[in-house]
């Protein structure tokens, strides 16, 4: 607690120095390589969770079934601490499946983390499609499959995409946790910097993670603008966000 002001300035200077040092960026443990790792340990679980949770949520929403199960998953999914998920991922990877710990533990962790917001929002989005709209579609003789694909899914798509964006940011921001269990990615700089009392490296890592998360957010927002039909844009955030928000 000696002269916090001076310490803060030092920390900022050191961070700047670390971030602008070419040596921090190159090599197998440099920023570039770690960023790629980060992308990879985020993308694999996000894509797999999307492949599982979105269809499940959409189907459950379509059949208006599994409300109780859905709510339970949703509550439980949010309540399990991410550190606990990491331990579970670690045990699963190392002890049960024998896959080692440099990659899979954090991938499992993030996969489980991503399931809840994706499922909950897909489910809610489809279920809350305007009943009159569905009525009209069925009245025109559309099969259930067509109702799902041609009406419910397009109407739900903005919320689902918003959920994907929020989940992606959450996954990217939680991925550093893996470095606690010897994982890679940008979290390494935070853990190593902390362990080595190298404030520049640690704070540099924090900055990089935040920038990475904001870039992901930006990229998916752009994608949303392209994919989501104009009239449906901009009306989805509140609904999706409320069912999600979680820090790790």
């Amino acid at each position, binding site marked *: 607690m000696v002269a916090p002001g001076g310490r803060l300035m030092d920390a900022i200077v050191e961070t700047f120095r670390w971030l602008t040092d070419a040596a921090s960026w190159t090599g197998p443990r440099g920023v570039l390589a770690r960023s790629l790792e980060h992308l990879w340990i985020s993308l694999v679980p996000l894509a797999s969770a999307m492949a599982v949770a979105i269809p499940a949520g959409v189907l459950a929403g379509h059949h208006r079934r599994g409300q109780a199960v859905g709510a339970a998953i949703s509550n439980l999914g949010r309540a399990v601490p991410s550190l606990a998920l990491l331990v579970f991922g670690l045990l699963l990877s190392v002890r049960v499946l024998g896959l*080692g710990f440099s990659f899979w533990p954090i991938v499992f962790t993030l996969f489980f983390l991503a399931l809840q917001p994706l499922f909950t929002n897909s489910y809610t989005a489809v279920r809350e499609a305007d009943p009159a709209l569905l009525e009209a579609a069925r009245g025109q003789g559309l099969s259930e499959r067509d109702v799902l694909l041609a009406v419910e899914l397009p109407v739900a798509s903005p919320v689902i995409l918003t959920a994907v964006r929020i989940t992606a940011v959450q996954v990217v921001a939680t991925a550093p946790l893996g470095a606690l269990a010897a994982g890679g990615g940008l979290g390494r700089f935070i853990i190593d910097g902390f362990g*080595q009392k190298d404030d520049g490296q640690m704070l540099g890592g924090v900055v990089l993670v935040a920038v990475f998360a904001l870039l992901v957010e930006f990229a998916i927002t752009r994608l949303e603008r392209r994919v989501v039909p104009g009239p449906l844009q901009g009306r989805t955030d509140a609904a999706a966000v409320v069912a999600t928000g979680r820090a790790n």
Partner: protein
Amino acid sequence: MRKKRRSHLTVAALSVVALLATACGGDTGGGDPGAGGGVEGPTITVGTVDFAENRILGQIYGQALEHAGYDVEITENIGNRELVAPQLEDGNLDLIVEYTGNALRFERGGEDVEIRDEQEVYDALNEAYADKGLTALRMSEAQDVDAVVVTKETAEEHGLERISDIAGFEGTFRFGGGPECETRLSCFKGLEEVYGLDNVEFVPLDVAGPITVEALKSGEVDGANLFTTQSAIVANDFVVLEDDQQLQLPQNIVPVIRQEIVDAYGDDLVSLINEITTSLTTESLTELNAKVEIDQEDPDAVAEQWLRENGFLEE
């Protein structure tokens, strides 16, 4: 009961709450149980680093002092020396358990230290501590040294007996250790700078914990930093490579205490601590570690049992 952290937290919590003028709660009765015939004086806060041996030792000293009537708090699981040392200087901690050589290197800013004699290292350490208001009390004969460890198979396959032999290792020798190992001379940095090895690559793992052991067993690393008293070495038939260039300093166990506390309590306190220190042996350390790391007993229970067996807890 033994972890006194709650009262500490409750006080802090209450002050925060009071600060907000949300005055409620009052005394939560987190008082001080046990400890008959209390000794008047400041609270002694014992800090332990997050690996089994240090936690056991911290518990041993902490519990013995508490039993003798001192007011003790034990703060467990602080990251590493880089974190603990400033806490001791700032007065947030009063007593920690150190290892002479590594502590001296740390005090000298990570520079190489030429001395290898136990007593000389100890004296140099106390010199470094003097103007910081710290004192290293009597050191123990027990030592726990950083070691370069490989599996038996690796040792046989590549003919490794001494650390220098790593130079002849075909390909890159992946060496695992805690994050701070990379920049410590007693660890990875020493392999590069003292041994001059250029075929070694650092892999950040945990501090000689289960991840490191698992990484070694599964071959994700070729060698790793463990400590010589760690049970995992014998349990897994690991081979400790001989430190032929004397990278390691002597690493005697030594309690480091703030001089203020010594001044406040005097000889009784010092002689109790010294008595415990003298009773520790390298063998007993290894045994205590095994109880936590292999038999999965709790550090505080293991410490209590040792104190009982060695006559420090009788009424």
